[in-house]
């Protein structure tokens, strides 16, 4: 995937930004923007794949600043979850905002994902 294109193709506020904070064994991926088809989903995939390939198996996705997702975005969340599981790692969620949380409930994926409100709790759970 050509990252340049993904990043250039959207106005600033909309592109998904993903930055990693390593806290002990846990990689916290702070996401901000929207997770949508052909852009945010690719950014997320790349970031998680990179972490897993680098041997980081405990991944916490901080969704606090994710404004919304489309079906491709939520599909990518599931894909990341599965990819981690295959490698005996895990992907958990931190602070999904109103719109994202509603979507997790709608799709019944809140039953699948371990979801936390407090980062400290989330970190302790791995």
């Amino acid at each position, binding site marked *: 995937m050509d990252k340049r294109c993904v990043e250039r193709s959207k106005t600033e506020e909309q592109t998904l930004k993903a930055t990693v904070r390593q806290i002990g064994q846990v990689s916290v991926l702070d996401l901000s923007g929207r997770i*949508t*088809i052909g852009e945010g989903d690719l950014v997320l995939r790349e970031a998680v794949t990179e972490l897993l390939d680098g041997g980081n198996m405990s991944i916490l996705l901080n969704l606090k600043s994710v404004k*919304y997702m489309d*079906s491709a975005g*939520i*599909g990518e969340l*599931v894909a990341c979850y599965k990819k981690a599981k295959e490698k005996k790692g895990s992907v958990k969620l931190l602070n999904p905002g109103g*719109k994202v949380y509603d979507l997790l409930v*709608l*799709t019944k994926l809140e039953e699948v994902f371990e979801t936390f409100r407090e980062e400290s709790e989330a970190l302790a759970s791995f």
Partner: protein
Amino acid sequence: MDLPRTVTLVMTSHLPLVDVAHSAAERMGEFADLEEDEALNLALAVREAVINAVLHGNRNDPDRKVRVDIRCSERTVRATVRDEGSGFSPEETPDPTAEENLMRSSGRGILMMRAFVDDVRFRRTSRGMEVTLIKNRPALARTGSADGQALR
């Protein structure tokens, strides 16, 4: 009052253009006096329908078009998304919230459309699939107070 207002959008089957339809729907939602969040919901439903039209309906064929008609009337704002594909039967699509489907990485678009607008109608025509997404306008907007905005 100065209605209906309509916007028609015809685009080639390129996935990135879905954002054009998304923005158009969001703005029409705002002009229809939907709350900001509800205008976004309309846009997200249109987004899902257009993605399906491009990918499943027109199968990314750049010669086939997707057409989106957005209309703001007195009581509703509605978007109709048409593709040039062979159509499908929505009732035959698997339930993405069923246990055995939860871990699939796709199949949630129609579920989302239904959640984001007040009514979703599917119709198979001789030319392709037709998906209509309907959102009710707030009562406030339908009384006098919206008049001022109709022609600004």
